């Protein structure tokens, strides 16, 4: 988080300003004060070392902004900054804004999640609100806006946009997130439509450019990383936004024509089939409750602003939560819509506009927000572009979420008492994400099409759905029975007996087919020549385990317990953890549950764990290292795990093992916890199996010694690959090196398996590679015993295994171990496929 430092000659002044700022931000923003000096003759003055310490105390790479009163405050601060190393120095900004207004504005901005540039911009314009209050014309904003586009250092580029749909929601979101990674000011215009420049960091402004396939755009960037920003955006556009757009999207434009027009029978409605399947059942009509927003004069714009920013924060958290919960049942492409929603909530265009209205019109936050949204929708509409207009639903969705947070009126969710067919005007994504399959049989919507997010969700949870029914939808009677045919896009109201019977047949057949695939998934998987392996799942929560079971997992090879620690403000208690582990194990019955102990570090920070951002998080204080230092946290988890192990099939796995002594130390702690439990008369499984994750090269090398300490190995190929090749997988410049098919990685895998087998123990894998169909024959040939993968790929993976021959796989493995490059491995693999 961005930090703020107040430097003043006077301790009272410094503390006072901090107090004012804290009052507006509920103490969330890190603010440090360096003020006054401690001498017998005076207390007024500034002290470089105090300033240094203040900055250091709240420093993070997100940035620090220093506000100073005058004179030596500035000189001393500049001197203090010289003592920081260059990579930190560049993140420390001295802001010329007036102290009180500057600090207050910055604090509010930081609390609202703005990036450093926006915070600085706002702080520098902090006099605006005051000036307008006094009726003094303010010109700063306009000046800096026009000036910034035409700075001397500006770099420009003109590019055609070639992806199928242009900069619609998801590509626009990607574009804006990429732009936001840079500190430069970036502007874009659509040359083909002769628009003005807009801010590339604002999703709304980008969308208003109406950029479609084939349009030429101009990107102008100025600032220290202007060149890089242009390159990154260029790459993004040229890669067509890495968009593997599901096929259905390409159909959208022709959709209107394709719409089914069956003989119009009075009892039949037609629409767009957006999700296949047949459902028969009663009707549940859902009318979202849109609260009346009264507009009233608000005496304190600052209070309104604080309420507003607070609500925005809360909605961000809500969305984060929904996203976390839905990410396993949807693929990444679908879940990214929530990232787009988060961008809307960060959008300076919306936030600024709301702020303007609050201050200029002195009205309440909800009313101001609503008019900002309304203006945005009007500007969307004026584009006359269907795809852009479709994004209205996103805006309305976040709008109503923010309003419900502001008014405290909770949104009702569509949830009938008994399972029914949901009939709606339009479902917004956050509502769709919370649909419960056991309560909703099918979905009928007046608006929407195949690209609507609710359509995507319906498909991902296998809910039949017909959208775009139009006003006819009003004909559906609350008390009727419906047939929804998601294959053809037909809805039949109160069907006659013959129709009903026919559809029942169809539905039952479908259900039967589905069950057959599922039951196949449950069958043991073995190769053509009869070899079998264990296929288990990687999970993060109870829902995942259910999905894993539905997909035929033999157990859980990796339960990422760190998710229990995320998105909350304090540690999960022993009891809380115990309950979840127990529930997980009970769900799995005889099947194995592998609980990986807390794997956390500088790359996935958890605020209350007090892990500082590290310059090198992947080489830092993470995984088992952290737990061995924070024994209290570790012991709590081990107690919970051990308690859950009583008469259940639970095993423990330690992440990020680098050395033998680490494992010994972890085991010693485990033994200690066992003793404590015994003394307290609490039962647990004394013979609980212990495993080590093999993801650090040193662990591979020491494998033969390490295996003496544990019962099994589990390869974490994601980390192993990046450590073996010393290539950061999040760095686009070197990510190509991070290929698990690199012969060096394959040899590490071979050695790990060999070490385990030599000791008569088992070697599994829970990295992404384990679920990669291409890796299947190689890993099988190398002798891997257990494959742990994301639940949704299990059935496909098993099918593939059934077509594989162990003998051929072994041959392939032999061959790839002789290769000296990834390319060679891949060509050997291609030969294998040809056979």
């Amino acid at each position, binding site marked *: 988080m961005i930090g703020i430092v107040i430097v003043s000659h006077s301790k009272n002044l410094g503390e006072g300003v901090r107090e004012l700022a804290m009052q507006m931000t509920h103490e969330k923003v890190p603010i440090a004060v360096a003020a006054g000096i401690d001498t017998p003759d005076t207390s007024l003055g*500034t002290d470089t070392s105090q300033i240094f310490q203040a900055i250091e105390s709240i420093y993070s790479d997100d940035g620090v902004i220093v506000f100073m009163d005058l*004179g030596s405050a500035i000189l001393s601060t500049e001197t203090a900054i010289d003592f920081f190393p260059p990579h930190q120095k560049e993140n420390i900004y001295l802001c010329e804004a007036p102290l009180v207004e500057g600090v207050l504005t910055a604090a509010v901005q930081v609390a609202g999640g703005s990036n450093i540039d926006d915070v600085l911009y706002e702080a520098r314009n902090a006099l605006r609100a005051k000036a307008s209050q006094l009726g003094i014309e303010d010109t700063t904003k306009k000046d800096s806006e026009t000036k910034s586009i035409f700075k001397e250092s500006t770099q420009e580029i003109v590019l055609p946009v070639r992806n199928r749909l242009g900069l619609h929601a998801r590509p626009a979101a990607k574009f804006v997130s990429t732009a936001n990674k840079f500190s430069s000011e970036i502007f874009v215009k659509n040359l083909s439509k002769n628009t003005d420049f807009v801010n590339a960091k604002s999703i709304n402004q980008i969308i208003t450019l109406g950029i479609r396939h084939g349009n030429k755009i101009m990107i102008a960037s100025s600032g220290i990383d202007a060149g890089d920003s242009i390159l990154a955006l260029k790459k993004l556009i040229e890669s067509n936004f890495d968009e593997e757009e599901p096929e259905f999207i390409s159909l959208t434009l022709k959709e209107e024509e394709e719409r089914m027009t069956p003989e119009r029978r009075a009892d039949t409605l037609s629409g767009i089939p957006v999700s296949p399947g047949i459902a028969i059942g009663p009707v549940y009509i859902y009318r979202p409750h849109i609260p009346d927003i009264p507009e009233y004069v608000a005496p304190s714009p600052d209070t309104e602003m604080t309420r507003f920013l607070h609500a925005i924060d809360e909605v961000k958290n809500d969305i984060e939560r929904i996203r976390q919960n839905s990410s396993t049942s949807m693929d990444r492409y679908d879940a990214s819509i929530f990232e787009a929603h988060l961008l809307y909530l960060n959008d300076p265009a919306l936030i600024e506009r709301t702020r303007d209205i609050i201050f200029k019109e002195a009205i309440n936050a909800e009313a101001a927000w609503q008019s900002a949204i309304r203006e945005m929708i009007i500007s969307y509409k004026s584009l006359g572009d269907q795809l852009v207009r479709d994004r209205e639903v996103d805006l309305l969705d976040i709008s109503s979420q923010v309003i419900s947070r502001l008014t405290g009126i909770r949104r009702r969710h569509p949830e009938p008492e008994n399972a029914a067919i949901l009939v709606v005007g339009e479902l917004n994504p956050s509502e769709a994400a919370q649909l419960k399959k056991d309560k909703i049989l099918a979905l009928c919507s007046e608006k929407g099409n195949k690209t609507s997010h609710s359509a995507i969700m319906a498909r991902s949870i296998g809910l039949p759905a017909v959208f775009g029914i139009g006003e006819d939808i009003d004909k559906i009677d609350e008390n009727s029975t419906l047939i929804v045919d998601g294959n053809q896009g037909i809805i039949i109201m109160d069907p006659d007996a013959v129709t009903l019977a026919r559809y029942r047949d169809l539905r039952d057949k479908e259900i039967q087919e589905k069950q057959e695939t599922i039951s196949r998934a449950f069958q043991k998987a073995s190769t053509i020549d009869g070899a079998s392996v264990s296929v288990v799942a990687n999970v993060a929560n109870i829902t995942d385990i259910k999905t894993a079971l539905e997909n035929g997992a033999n157990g859980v090879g990796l339960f990422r317990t760190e998710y229990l620690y995320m998105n909350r403000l304090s540690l999960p208690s022993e009891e809380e953890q115990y309950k979840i582990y127990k529930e997980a194990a009970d769900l799995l019955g005889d099947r194995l549950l592998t609980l990986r102990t807390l794997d956390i570090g500088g790359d996935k920070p958890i605020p209350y764990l007090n892990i500082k951002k590290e310059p090198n998080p992947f080489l830092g204080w993470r995984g088992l290292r952290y737990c061995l230092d924070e024994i209290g946290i570790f012991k709590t988890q081990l107690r919970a795990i051990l308690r859950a192990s009583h008469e259940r099939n639970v095993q423990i796995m330690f992440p990020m093992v680098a050395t033998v002594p680490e494992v010994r130390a972890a085991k010693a702690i485990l033994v200690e916890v066992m003793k404590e439990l015994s003394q307290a008369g609490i039962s647990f499984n004394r013979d609980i199996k212990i495993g080590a994750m093999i993801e650090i090269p040193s662990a591979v090398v020491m494998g033969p010694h390490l295996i003496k300490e544990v019962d099994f190995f589990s390869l974490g190929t994601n980390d192993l690959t990046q450590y073996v090749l010393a290539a950061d997988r999040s760095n686009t410049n070197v990510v190509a090196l991070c290929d698990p098919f690199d012969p060096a990685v394959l040899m590490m895998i071979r050695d790990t398996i060999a070490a385990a087998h030599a000791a008569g123990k088992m070697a599994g894998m829970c990295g992404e590679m384990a679920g990669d169909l291409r890796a299947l024959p190689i890993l099988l040939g190398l002798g891997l015993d257990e494959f742990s993968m994301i639940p949704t790929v299990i059935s496909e993976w098993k099918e593939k295994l059934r077509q594989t021959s162990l003998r051929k796989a072994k041959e392939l493995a032999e061959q790839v171990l002789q290769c000296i490059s990834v390319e060679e491995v891949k060509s050997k693999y291609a030969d294998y496929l040809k056979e």
Partner: protein
Amino acid sequence: MFTYKDTLTWIRLTAQYIEENKDYLTDLDRAIGDADHGSNMDRGFKKVMKRITTCEDEDIGSMLNMVGMALISSVGGAAGPLYGTFYLQAAKAINSKKELSPEDIAALLEAGTEGLIKRGKTNPGDKTIIDSLQPGVEALKKSLRDGNDITAAMQDAVQSAEEGMRHTIPLVAKKGRASYLGERSAGHQDPGATSAFYILKALRDVFVSG
């Protein structure tokens, strides 16, 4: 040659002159500032004297470095970071030398002055420290170039610094607290220019007395 011991004497004399003229400096600052320059400087050099050691094998660079750090962390006013930077930069220029030639001394003062100018972003005539410091250093360099020995050159330096100091009286302050007074700052001698004069005077007296 100018030794470690001589450096020690320079710092000690500086501290002494500052202490003797503490009230004078404060009075100057009362007229156009916040009446603390004397006590600020005195506090700073007291701290310096507390930290200073007389260990022979230490080099001059690290001693000046220590002086800079002590001033930075104790003066409390603009003079802290300014003079602090002066000594830090001076230390850098001579590194770990144990003896200084006249040219080294000139280089040290010049580097320090440059650092101070950069830190304060001042121009000559802004009514600040550099209005006495810079002419002093320039005179020293010129005098050495003319073939004078260091004692004579330092005499020249102090003379020029003193003239520069007097010349700050009619100036309107452009930097520091005094700048808030605008035109009203004219007619008074700048306290910072005065303390800089004592620093050079102390250096000269190392040669004159020793």
